């Protein structure tokens, strides 16, 4: 099983801190799983121009390929201007239409205000659905006040991040069985 954790903010630190936490927990609890964290602050991606993702080069090809090869993606997003950041939308635009088919995707959100709570529900989940992801219904929503000195201070967030990681792994484990039974009915 390959899991990619993605911090999609190109500036700031909260999304990366949360995704690093989820990544650490994943590595600690599930040692047999191949885990890779992608931090978009460290990558130099070009804007999508409609090419097939295999035709890009450099960091763009590397990030797109890693996401395409993943069985599960833990997606970290900040909320900028009441929406997902352009850097995350660009990732979606770089990938094929049904790129997330048969992949489990779970969501971690960092936001400056609780008033942004429905942004991922209204703006991120429709995109993931369109791309055919198996999206976990529960998300982890983290506010600015949950952080202190570059760490997540609110212990409830730690609990919820751990549960999200566990559910992501469990769903990724059982999904192939669903797929196998679905395809066994075909030919």
């Amino acid at each position, binding site marked *: 099983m390959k899991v990619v954790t993605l911090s999609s903010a190109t500036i700031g630190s909260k999304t990366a801190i949360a995704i690093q936490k989820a990544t650490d927990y994943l590595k600690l609890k599930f040692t047999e799983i191949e885990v890779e964290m992608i931090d978009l602050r460290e990558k130099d991606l070009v804007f999508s121009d409609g090419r097939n993702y295999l035709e890009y080069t450099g960091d763009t090809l590397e990030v797109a390929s890693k996401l*395409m090869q993943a069985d599960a993606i833990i997606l970290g997003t900040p909320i900028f201007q009441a929406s997902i950041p352009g850097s995350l939308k660009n990732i979606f635009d770089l990938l*094929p239409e049904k790129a997330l*088919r048969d992949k489990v995707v779970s969501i971690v959100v960092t936001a400056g205000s609780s008033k942004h709570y429905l942004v991922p529900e209204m703006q991120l989940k429709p995109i993931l659905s369109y791309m055919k992801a198996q999206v976990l219904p529960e998300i982890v929503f983290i506010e600015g006040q949950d952080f202190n000195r570059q760490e997540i201070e609110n212990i409830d967030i730690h609990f919820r991040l751990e549960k999200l990681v566990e559910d992501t792994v469990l769903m990724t484990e059982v999904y192939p069985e669903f797929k196998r039974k*679905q395809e066994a009915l*075909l*030919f």
Partner: protein
Amino acid sequence: MPIWRAVGGPAESAIKAGRQGVPMAIAMLGGPVSIFKRSVMAYRESLAINGYNPDDFPVATTGLFYAAKDSQTALREFYPYVNKGIEIANGTGFNKRLFANGAHPKDVMAIGSPQQIIEKILYQYEEFGHQRYMAQIDFGGLPFKKVMENIEMIGTTILPAVKKYTKEQ
């Protein structure tokens, strides 16, 4: 030299071919005949609107072709190559459910027994009224032996039956 416009699924592409007044070759990877019929109709309508006589312009269809003793065998034998070929080309494989639908008589894919393929080609001929069909057999590393067997079945069984019917028209 006649230049054909190659069009994909959406009708907008077929409408442009009609506007240009050029023959149309439509790529049909998979899906119901009825969806592609919309494009063929839109093409002819577009020809007429733009001052051309639709009867003067041929339509070609293109699609995956694989014949075996029955549809289940055909699906099982051909799927791994199609999946691999599409994966190499696009980075994602061919959805197995979509491929399985290909055996249905009203799906565009020419997959099944020679008799089933004859019926599918003729059904599509009735629906599209097209002049040419191009079969994609060699794909994703299909062994040459299988390609030969398919060409053999086309020559001995499929083509004579199709020609017999289309000659009467």
